[in-house]
């Protein structure tokens, strides 16, 4: 890694804390971003000569803050209002700042920075785009490429989203315990959403690195909120799912189902970290949806071969998840485990009542088609697969269902109308 790459990595890593601290100081996102940008430019000049500072984040906060204050002073001078008292007041403020930058502040700073992106009036994709721009520091065109829109369109979306959160009441005071928990929950949901955008797009897509970014943000939060079992659960869940990424698609980009994946290609380092985090979380005896989903992923990760999968445990975990988070999608997933344990007829009985709520859901028709096929009800299976293809979210999803259909066609060509 070159020195420049190293400095860039350090700037990216420091961004959430440094920008969060600058936002707390300036209480204005644009000014904070400008200050951080300024500090980065100075770091690129200074660090190669003087070596990286002992605490890059604190360096960026102080330099960024001073640069922005200089800017404010210059502007006020141009406006002909160079009040000496104001300037010396600002100088006084500088001294205690270094002491105030400690980890307890950082954690609320980072949380605040992420939390303002989760504004409930913003649609999910805009929350993600905003977090990628503000917290991760991706360029507008990087984000535009990931969302398959033009740079100009993404620029406009981000500007509008920023305007909206600027109008909102940004909570600057230190949150109390309940508020902190609430923010952490909202931010966790957004991070998982970000992960899923990458996960469903698959390797090789412009969104693939969303998974890495989501894991990075989760690790960062976990380091600041070390005793939160659900934070451990969320991080573990993403690590364990991401571990399978190298095996999830074949060379032609087709989806490879869990039971057909080459488990030798699963990333054992990610699995080890995920399992360690679940172990830690379990000690707290405060189960929650992320921990349960992580435990399900762990159960798959522990099976060296598909036939070693503990379906009874997975079924029980889905049952627990249904209690925490009743949702037809959870029941649909549980039915897949139930099919392994009790056969496709029982599983089909479980999902038929979900039809009214899941009729527009790709996976519902795919799973239903597979159960029907196992039961030998081929005509109904074909209808279900046809529905699934019509609802596929990605070409790979459609292609996967088409494989089932092709097999059906070979076995039993459709009758001429």
């Amino acid at each position, binding site marked *: *890694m070159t020195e420049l790459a*190293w400095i860039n*990595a350090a700037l990216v890593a420091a961004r959430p804390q440094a920008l969060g601290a600058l936002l707390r100081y300036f209480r204005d996102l644009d000014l904070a971003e400008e200050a951080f940008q300024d500090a980065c430019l100075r770091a690129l000049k200074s660090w190669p000569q003087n070596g990286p500072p002992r605490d890059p984040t604190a360096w960026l906060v102080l330099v960024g803050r001073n640069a922005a204050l200089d800017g404010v002073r210059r502007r006020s001078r141009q406006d002909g209002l160079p009040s000496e008292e104001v300037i010396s007041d600002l100088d006084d403020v500088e001294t205690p700042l270094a002491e105030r930058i400690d980890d307890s502040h950082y954690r609320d700073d980072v949380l605040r920075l992420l939390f303002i992106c989760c504004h409930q009036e913003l649609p999910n994709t805009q929350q993600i785009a905003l977090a990628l721009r503000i917290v991760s520091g991706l360029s507008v065109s990087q984000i535009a490429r990931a969302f398959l829109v033009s740079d100009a369109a993404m620029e406009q979306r981000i500007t509008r989203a920023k305007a909206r959160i600027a109008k909102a009441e940004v909570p600057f005071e230190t949150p109390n315990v309940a508020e902190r928990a609430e923010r952490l929950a909202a931010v966790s949901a957004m991070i998982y959403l970000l992960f899923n955008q990458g996960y469903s797009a698959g390797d090789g897509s412009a969104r693939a690195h969303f998974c890495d970014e989501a894991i990075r943000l989760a690790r960062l939060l976990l380091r600041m909120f070390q005793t939160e079992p659900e934070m451990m659960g969320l991080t573990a869940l993403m690590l364990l799912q991401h571990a399978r990424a190298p095996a999830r698609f074949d060379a032609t980009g087709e989806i490879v189902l869990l039971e057909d994946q080459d488990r030798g290609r699963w990333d054992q380092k990610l699995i080890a970290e995920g399992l360690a*985090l679940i172990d830690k979380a379990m000690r707290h005896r405060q189960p929650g949806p992320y921990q349960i989903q992580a435990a399900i992923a762990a159960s798959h990760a522990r099976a060296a071969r598909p036939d070693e999968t503990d379906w009874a445990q997975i079924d029980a975990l889905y049952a627990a998840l249904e209690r925490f988070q009743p949702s037809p999608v959870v029941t649909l997933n549980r039915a897949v485990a139930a099919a392994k344990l009790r056969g496709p007829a029982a599983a089909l009985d479980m999902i038929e009542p979900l039809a009214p709520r899941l009729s527009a859901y790709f996976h519902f028709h795919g799973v239903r088609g597979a159960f029907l096929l196992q039961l030998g009800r081929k005509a109904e299976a074909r209808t279900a697969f046809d529905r699934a293809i019509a609802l596929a979210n990605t070409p790979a999803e459609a292609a996967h269902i088409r494989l089932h259909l092709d097999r059906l066609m070979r076995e039993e060509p459709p009758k001429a109308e």
Partner: protein
Amino acid sequence: MLYAILCYNDEDVVWSWTKEEDEAVMAKLAAVQERLIKAGKMGPSLRLLPTTAATTLRKTQEPPLVIDGPFAETKEQLLGFYVIDVADLPEAIEVARELAAANPGGAYEIRPVAVYFPDRRRGAGP
């Protein structure tokens, strides 16, 4: 003389590396290790998971308190270590220098080993 070379770095940065960056650094470190292995100087080495995976038993009270996270909150974290068998401190520093060239940032602490037990699991070791 046995030395432990303890690797410290900012884990926020190290765990932010892309897979490619990580692999590139690991390959460079492997080249240094390879030379030491050939010279018969390479003892055990390992890389640790991030401190978010750590648990600490604190003996400040009785019974000891089990808490999440690393023992110390520091800017740089212990990421792993090497045990090497070299003639003297200058040679140990030379090894650390080579490792440092592969891996920007952070620091290496060179600590002489007082007591050394090899891997004593069944089936492990020579």
